[in-house]
């Protein structure tokens, strides 16, 4: 939201002083050059707005900003709008109420600003802390509220029935062991998460992954209907209580099963299991599916050459937040015929799809504040490097980018595929 006009008027007409006739030492020096500006008075300035943020647990670091501006250049939201911690700091300092301002919801918690900030101003702490207060006060966009409500009620933000969580397995073409039924220890417990279990495009990737795991002879199983959303994005969007209550449920569920490693399809779940669940009594040896498969690519029997120029989009919560950049690329490079090309923004400086930190459920709310969606911007970048395939490994991204391919008019030029779908296809297993 722009700051009110009055507050940024640099020259206030009534404070301009100019003598119409001015004689100094007998010399007439009338004219506009004797114009004087009185000191500007900031009014409507509320100094305690900043204190309200910095006194929150997690909000402290907003006060450390010294306006160097490094963050704005890397903020993916600023690329398509007007944003970044520096701007947020300044706006809050000069009186916007971040707790009710639309700006509160634009940050995707992508983490790129923190990477470059000399003062360690940490939006990944600040935003959830302020959002939590806003949510407690009942200020949140309706789309987000809907996702919270559905997560609380059904254990997934799509509002799908819990009983259908494992339905995708039916058409996998291989047996997907459900641990509640098989009741035996496994090497790999696969935590499927919501979009891979329910979203039609996510389900396709899940089936491809199931087939690949089976072909590699990996001893794996899924939880099935008792799995609930890991809810990391809900946490970052301000619903901490929801996250905690689901974390407690999930930790209890996981305690029922014996497994060596916990594999996730979703980088957001990866982040939560690795960095948040230990605080709630759950410590696991967690791997992203690309990390599990990368060391095994030499064992894959490739049956097809894909002959495609592929570019890879680093998910913020796998790359920047958790430092994994290589595993997905190793898999891509192993696929026969695939030529990997990098986009200008990649790895540490990877662009954000816009879905993180609750962005997945703020699409309509945020759109009017942006020139184009982050996903649309990213799709253009993929097209610019001449890629035929935009490869991803986060379940939010397939739906976001496919939609963006259509809306940017790039249908026929670019397709969006989860890495595992490419593997499945090159293995000749795709159905």
């Amino acid at each position, binding site marked *: 939201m722009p700051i009110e006009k009055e507050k940024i008027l640099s020259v206030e007409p009534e404070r301009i002083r100019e003598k119409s006739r001015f004689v100094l030492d007998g010399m007439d020096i009338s004219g506009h050059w004797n114009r004087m500006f009185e000191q500007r008075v900031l009014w409507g300035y509320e100094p305690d707005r900043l204190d309200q943020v910095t006194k929150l647990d997690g909000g402290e670091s907003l006060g450390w900003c010294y306006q160097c501006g490094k963050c704005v250049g890397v903020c993916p939201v600023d690329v398509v709008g007007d944003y970044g911690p520096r701007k947020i700091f300044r706006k809050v300092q000069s009186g916007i109420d971040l707790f009710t301002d639309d700006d509160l919801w634009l940050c995707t918690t992508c983490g790129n600003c923190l990477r470059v900030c000399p003062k360690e101003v940490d939006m990944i702490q600040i935003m959830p802390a302020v959002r939590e207060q806003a949510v407690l006060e009942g200020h949140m966009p309706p789309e987000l509220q809907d996702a919270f409500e559905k997560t609380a009620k059904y254990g997934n933000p799509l509002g799908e029935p819990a009983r259908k969580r494992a339905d995708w397995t039916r058409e996998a073409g291989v047996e997907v062991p459900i641990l509640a039924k098989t009741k035996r220890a496994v090497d790999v417990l696969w935590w499927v998460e919501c979009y891979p279990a329910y979203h039609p495009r996510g389900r396709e990737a899940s089936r491809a992954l199931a087939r690949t795991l089976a072909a590699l002879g990996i001893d794996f199983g899924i939880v099935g209907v008792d799995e609930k959303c890991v809810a990391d994005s809900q946490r970052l969007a301000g619903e901490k209580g929801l996250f905690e209550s689901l974390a407690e449920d999930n930790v209890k569920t996981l305690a029922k099963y014996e497994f060596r490693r916990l594999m996730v399809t979703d980088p957001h779940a990866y982040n939560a299991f690795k960095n948040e669940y230990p605080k709630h009594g759950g410590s696991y040896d967690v791997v992203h599916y690309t990390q599990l498969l990368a060391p095994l690519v030499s064992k894959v029997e490739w049956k097809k050459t894909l002959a495609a120029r592929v570019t890879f989009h680093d998910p913020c919560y796998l790359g920047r937040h958790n430092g994994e950049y290589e595993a997905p690329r190793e898999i891509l490079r192993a696929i026969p015929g695939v030529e990997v090309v990098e986009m200008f923004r990649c790895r540490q400086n990877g662009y954000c799809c816009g879905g993180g930190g609750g962005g997945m459920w703020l699409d309509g709310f945020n*759109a009017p504040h942006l020139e184009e969606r982050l996903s649309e911007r990213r799709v253009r970048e993929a097209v610019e490097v001449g890629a035929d395939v935009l490869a991803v490994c986060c379940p939010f991204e397939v739906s976001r980018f496919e939609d963006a391919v259509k*809306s940017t008019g790039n249908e026929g030029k670019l397709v969006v595929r989860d890495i595992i779908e490419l593997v499945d296809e090159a293995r000749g297993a795709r159905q």
Partner: protein
Amino acid sequence: MAADVAVVVEHLNGTIAEVSFEMLGQGKRLAAALGGKLRAIVLGRDARAAAEACGTADAVLYVEHEALGGFDPEAHGKALAALCAESAPAVVLVGNSSKGMDLAPDLAVALGVPVVTNVGAVAIEGGTIVATSRLYGGKIHAEVQVAGGRAVLSVLAGAFPAEAGKSDRPAAVEGVAPPADLASRIAFQRLIEPEAADVDITKEDVLVSVGRGIQDKDNLEIVQELADALGCPLSASRPLVDLGWMPKSRQVGKSGVTVKPKLYIAIGISGAPEHVQGMKDAATIVAINSDPKAPIFDVAHYGVAADLFDVVPALTEKVRELKG
């Protein structure tokens, strides 16, 4: 006496609600099955005009009184109860509308007879009234048998054909004096007509929804004509809102609004999960899409796999023909 059927006719500003004709048609058949007569009941300040239009009934009883001017549930309830207590029909059909919701259970308690709500079918089996109620948003139906041979049935709009209830026959109208006591604790204040400017698509019974298949802003006219013919507003998928062709308030879906109309006509919409999330609970979904494999056909009840530019104008024409 206890073999007669009564239909409570609903009217507003001189127009009889379609459901009333549907009930008159069905009432006629029930009366025949019971070997009784069909009576229409019309209440109002000026009820006679509406009564005249109910030629299907064997008799039309109308009650006129100042207190029955606007719909006051208590005054209408009293007038209806008095009339039914006297004539003791076996079956009273009431529309399951706003007014009907206030009238039907109330009347049943007043007469001491059972009430069946959400009725979509009714039959007389050996003198017993058997009604089918559509429960759980229509997902489950319950077939119930009514004890005691008398019932109030609250009938769903669209359950029976209206044609059978329309007749050019002059109605045998009969004015009935209102009961002495029409005192009410409710006062009708005024009617509020909808403001044309702000359409709330979540409250509409019918929506014509348009997607990117329309291709060009100027082509919107084609679907607007269909919407006008049907007397409903347009809604849209997100791309049309993004393009600024439609206002944000008309966006159906995950990041728009969720709608549950009785009829949703999706034109040139592919049926992406984010769109489907906002309309899958519509009672009847019709999809028009040139791609026979479009996922919208997985949620639609009726599909037309053809070019919208051919089908929509033809449809508009047919609708206009029928509506006259």
